[in-house]
């Protein structure tokens, strides 16, 4: 148990230490943003978010600055990163949905009730993974103690079973989230990108994708990426510079 407490303390210290540069970046970026210098603000937030990629606020603010600077595609990429980190934040959800609608997409998939979407995205993937480990620790420790002594078994068996059920539930939830979130995602960051049937200019144009549309990156061939458009279910090759990977 001492080891567990030590690990928790170390993690808490690491979290506190990481918040200091983020706060500085947020203040400086806000100053530039309020002055209307959105490009400089976006560059500032971009550097800060690269240094502290776990800060949803930095990604969100970068998205705001990029959106105001007219770069909707890059704004969607930043909002998506912020949403992946903190899906419960209503501002992040609103801005991501607002910018996605510019590209003919919506945050909540069509046909899914909003409440179900909100419930499914109540926790981020990393939070789910953390909870899963917590439930795993609790289950194994309680189960181990139950095995040690018969007297402890009578007291701890119920708790061990509940912890086990929680572990399974969170594990399934985490797997479902991994299933709906492709491993390699990107966003179109150029206006009306032409997707071709092969990796080169000599192939025919299959379709055009608007700036800000979320895509799945299927494969890579030199300076070309094969993308799949999630909503329409089509795929094609686009220049790598036209896609920002999330």
């Amino acid at each position, binding site marked *: 148990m001492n*080891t*567990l407490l030590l*690990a*928790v303390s*170390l*993690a*808490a210290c*690491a*979290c506190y230490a*990481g*918040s200091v540069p*983020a*706060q500085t970046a*947020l*203040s400086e*970026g*806000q100053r530039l*943003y309020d002055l209307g210098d959105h490009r400089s603000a976006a560059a500032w937030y971009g550097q800060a978010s690269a240094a502290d990629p*776990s*800060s*949803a*606020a930095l990604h*969100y*603010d970068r998205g*705001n600055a990029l*959106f*105001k600077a007219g770069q909707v595609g890059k704004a969607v990429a930043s909002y998506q990163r912020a949403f992946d*980190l*903190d899906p419960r*934040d209503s*501002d*992040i959800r*609103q*801005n991501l949905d*607002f*910018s996605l609608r510019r590209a003919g997409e919506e945050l909540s998939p069509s046909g899914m009730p909003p409440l179900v979407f909100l419930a499914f995205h109540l926790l*981020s993937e*990393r*939070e789910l*993974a*953390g*909870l899963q*480990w*917590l439930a*795993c*620790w609790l*289950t*194994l*420790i309680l*189960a*181990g*103690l139950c*095995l*040690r002594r018969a007297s402890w078994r009578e007291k701890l068996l119920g708790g061990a079973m509940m912890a086990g059920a929680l572990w399974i539930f969170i594990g399934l939830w985490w797997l479902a989230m991994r299933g709906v979130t492709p491993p390699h995602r990107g966003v179109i960051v*150029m*206006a*009306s990108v032409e997707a071709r049937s092969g990796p080169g*200019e000599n192939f025919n144009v299959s379709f055009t994708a608007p700036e800000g549309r979320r895509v799945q990156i299927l494969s890579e061939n030199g300076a070309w990426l094969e993308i799949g458009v999630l909503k329409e279910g089509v795929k094609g090759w686009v220049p790598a510079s036209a896609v920002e990977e999330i």
Partner: protein
Amino acid sequence: MRTISLALAFFLTPVLAAAQQLSVTAAVDKTQVALDDQVVLAVTVTGQAASLPDPQMPPLRDFSMYSSGRNQSISFINGQVSSSVTHTFVLIPRMVGKGVIGPITVSASGATAKTDPIEISVAKSVNQPTAAPQPAPQARPAPRPNAASGPDIFVTTELDRRRAWVNEQVTLSFKFHTAISLMGNPEYNPPKLEGFLSEDLPPLRHYNEVIKGRTYYVTEIKMALFPLQAGKLSIGPATVHCQVQQDVSADPFASDFFDKFFAQGLTTSKAKTLNTQPLTLQVDPIPSAGRPPDFNGAVGRLSLSTSLDKTRAKVGDAVNLTMTLQGSGNLKSLGNPDLPQMPSWRVFDPVASVNEEKRGDLVQGSRVTRTVLVARVSGELTIPPITLSYFDPDQRRFVRLQTKPLSVSVAPGDANAAPAVGYIAPSAPTAKGISRVNEDIAYLKVRPTASAGTRLLRSWTSAGPLHALPFLFFAWCLASSLYREKIASDPKGARSRGALKAARRRLSSAGRETEALAGYLADKLDEPAPSLTLRRALDLLRMRGLPEATLAQVRALWEELDSRRFAPSTDLNAALPALKGDIEKLLKTLDKELPS
């Protein structure tokens, strides 16, 4: 220019009237003209339809007339189409005096409109003091044929370049060369064009040109072509039908003097059709490298400016934004510049008009787009820069135009004020409440959003090898539990397997040597230790098949230990380590020879 025009809009039925308000106007650039000069007649047909009928020209006795092209403009205002077609004609006076252009009519769907007659005074030519009527160019006496060779009459077409970009202007020149007199007006059929937009480039040009030593009277018609697609585009042959003057044939060697005499000076006409050679133009696509995102196909050399009719307004007031795109290029086919997002303004459909000029054989002019904006909110509102990109074919690069932002100071609106013209106000809410003005992104985060719990969970996920601990703990507990269960299920075997360990523990304690040996044998033989005698032990060991040598060692050590127990002596303590060594050896031997 004095304009003599008559616009007649009439209606056969109310439905027809709504569908097509047809009118026609005619104007000339001058009403007094010299005999060797020309008059430009512009006939404009307007109506609320995309396709308008051609004007029906009256027979002209006093003038030779040539078509110099047509110019059409179409505008869409609030979804309604209105178009205007201007037909340009060049009139060459035939005689001195008063010439009249009769009423010009247009008809469509039962509706008819016509112009008033136009009167033109034709004076003598300044350079030609003779009183004889000046013939039309085609009827003029041709330059006297000389000794040089060459056809009497021929036509050519040529392009000012053989290679062009998509939507770049190419000038096509048609030349009609005559070295003989023509009878009547020639009929010109322009070449068939596919894949081009065309614009006529008036006026007609007339000049003399010496070709291979022969002087020709040349009539030149120019046309601006804008290729619409890349590749090899062909320009079909142009055709001219004319009547040429031909002497009545008479045999110069005829014996009949009277035949020869009366044939002199007699001429007859002969129909002739002349065709030009087809031409090919290589059209290159606009480069894709470096193409700006807002490029919409504009080619030429352009400039863009914006202006507002007022810089102060109230909420609900209409402000007119004028965007002027000026320069050379096909302005008619250009779209309106895209307006940026202006959530603080209600933006109405733009109305565009094109003013085209054709100077120096170059299609140029301006495209003026007017957009009505109505302020939704008060404050210092800005109209962001408007951008437009075009391709400059001379410099072979894209040029991006950007206007300066415009500001309007908007005061809060008057609640009782009348709405702006063309502005449809949203229906007023019946009860006081929040009315959403526009939608925008939420403001910045000024603090990190992640809570301590979230940060802890994220860090917890990254603990790495630390997560092996609960698995190890559980495995240890499980193994321990299984071991205990195994012991519990086989006490005899467990006693036998633990015999050596227990014996050594006893042997390490002082004075328990006998107990160590006897206890070991009792555990191995599953006998109660206190009641185990040497005899019983030996019997059982023998039954287990131990060799006699081992049994002898057991007996010797057992008796040695008994003797030490019942005959204590201080000298014996000195030999105790050796004795313990013997016991240890014996225990090892027994452990090997006695299976568990």
